[in-house]
């Protein structure tokens, strides 16, 4: 029972962005995938969601291989993109109904949960709204509501803190902690390391399309020679210097 990415190589047509990437997320683990812009975080996520064709390697979740059985694999995955992507023709209520339909959720239980989530993100009186009526932050909250409603084994979250107010960030962190306590797996990419530290148990540093180092916060600090007094954000300066040296 885990997410296993093994020897993944891939990218866009003709360009290899990810090179022999290996990553495992155990149940109950929240993994923060960090790296500079262009390091390959979004490409990794796109491969994980089956949006890009892999050149090499395998991706499996709880023993189900993405390429062998994509629908069953996706049944266990929820995704929150950095920029909210909603169906323009569906109201918030219908987005919730669609999630229930696609993930085969029990209607009564799911509606109870949906109401809780909508209330948490102050969307409970906007069930009949179309996405065109929502602000960017509200749209992001709709993404959170639908993703957490699906109750999937793996949550893939791209830059979760973008566009959210502090109250929503606090609620989001609580939901992540709850998910981890329920043995769910979470893969999160972020640049806001100070906020991510609150929920992430293990970090993986992606550099030039491969995982350079993974481990706890202390292990990462130690690897890059960061003292306790130095901000974790200094990691980016070090990665940048490494990249310049590499070039």
């Amino acid at each position, binding site marked *: 029972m885990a997410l296993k990415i093994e020897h993944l190589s891939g990218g866009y047509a003709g360009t290899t962005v990810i090179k022999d990437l290996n990553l495992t997320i155990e149940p109950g683990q929240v993994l923060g995938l960090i790296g500079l812009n262009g390091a390959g975080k979004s490409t990794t996520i796109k491969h994980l969601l089956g*949006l890009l064709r892999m050149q090499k390697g395998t991706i499996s979740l709880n023993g189900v291989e993405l390429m062998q059985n994509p629908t069953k694999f*996706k049944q266990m995955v929820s995704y929150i993109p950095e920029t909210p*992507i909603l169906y323009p*023709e569906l109201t918030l209520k219908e987005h919730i109904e669609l999630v229930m*339909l*696609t993930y085969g959720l029990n209607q009564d239980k799911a509606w109870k949960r949906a109401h809780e989530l909508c209330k948490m993100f102050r969307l409970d009186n906007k069930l*009949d709204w179309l996405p*065109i009526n929502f602000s960017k932050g509200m749209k992001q909250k709709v993404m959170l509501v639908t993703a957490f409603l699906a109750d999937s084994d793996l949550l893939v979250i791209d830059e979760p803190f973008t566009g959210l107010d502090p109250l929503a960030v606090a609620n989001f962190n609580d939901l992540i902690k709850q998910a981890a306590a329920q043995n769910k797996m979470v893969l999160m990419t972020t640049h806001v390391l100070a906020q991510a530290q609150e929920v992430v148990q293990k970090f993986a540093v992606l550099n030039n399309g491969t995982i350079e180092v993974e481990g706890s916060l202390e292990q990462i600090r130690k690897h890059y020679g960061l003292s306790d007094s130095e901000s974790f954000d200094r990691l980016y300066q070090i990665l940048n210097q490494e990249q310049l040296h590499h070039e």
Partner: protein
Amino acid sequence: MNKIVKKRLEANFKKSMHYLTLVFNDFFILALIFLFGALMFWYAQNIKKWPSKLWFYSPLLALIWTITLGLGNFASLLQRADEQFLFNQDKNMKEYFRPLYSHSMILPTILILLVSGLLFPFATTRAGLSITSFIWIVAGLLESKMVQFKLIVRSFYFNKHNYYNFWLFMAINYVLLVITIATNSYSYLYTCLMLLCWTLVPYLPQGHAFNWYKAIEYEERRQDLLDSFYSMFTDVPDKKVKISRRKYLDFLISHKNQTPNTFLYQRSLLRDPEYSNLLIRMSLFSILLSWTLQDCKWATGLGALVIFLTLYQLIPLGTVYEHNMMYHVMPIERKTRNRDLARVLQKGMLIEWVLIAVGLIIFSPEKLYAALGAIGLLIFTFALLYAYLPVRIENLFKKIRY
């Protein structure tokens, strides 16, 4: 600013030419010549029969001219990004707008001259307008259009007072035109008044700050209107789709045996104007044909053509979610997609058949033949839905690469 506006004018000209060549294709030109010829023939035959100087001629002429005056917007060619990149250029906007007045006047000038040309025989022989008065009015209309554009541009600034209201502008022009046509010999007063307005508008107090939001909204609305016109003839990739909630149509949504695909396609068909408007427009067109033809054989035949054309244009509904990432991320079964799309289109087409059949029966003088025609149309619709549609859907999804 001069360079920017020149570049935009060039790009806009290229875009307009591209779409206009597609709109005015050979078939459309032929249809236009045919329709225009028919209209002119009818006009020439009937104008002789119309009595002279009836009381409603001046309000009627004024109305036609006022409607023509309302056509054509000021093309500011502003873009959403200008809010960000040109926001400190408020002072230079006057310079930016200068070449755009003449550019924006092209379409209104053509329309005013064309409509006036058509009205000329009627206005001079039946409404009793002298040729000189007629010329004065046409000149006044062109000036009025320029005044309108000046006021629009002025309203793009944060002013103390609102200088422009479309309906008020039209109402004033309508009243002035009615008076001008009725008085006949003083028609130059309308022209002089418009000339005076045109001279005075630049002296109206104007705010210093440019209202970027308002100006860009105006331009986006104008572009949208233009794209909607082009999209009636060809595919317009830039066209923004405005989804409408249309709660009153929710009763048409089926909740039984739903799959994620039918769930999505049903809502798209009802709320995406590209598809719902097509269904409504085509149904109305067929009803209109039944009403004007008053012949159930012709109306049935053309109804069948309308049903086929509607279905043909509705099939791309299947690809509406291809560019939505969440559609590919969510566990939505692809194997049943063909069947799901067909189910939704079957329902849509049967609704269209009901509308066409009702129109046919109501407007045809021979009710029995009309009912038989409606049954014939139903058989034709079923044949299309069960023999033609599955093949077309199969081909549609084959074209999509993953």
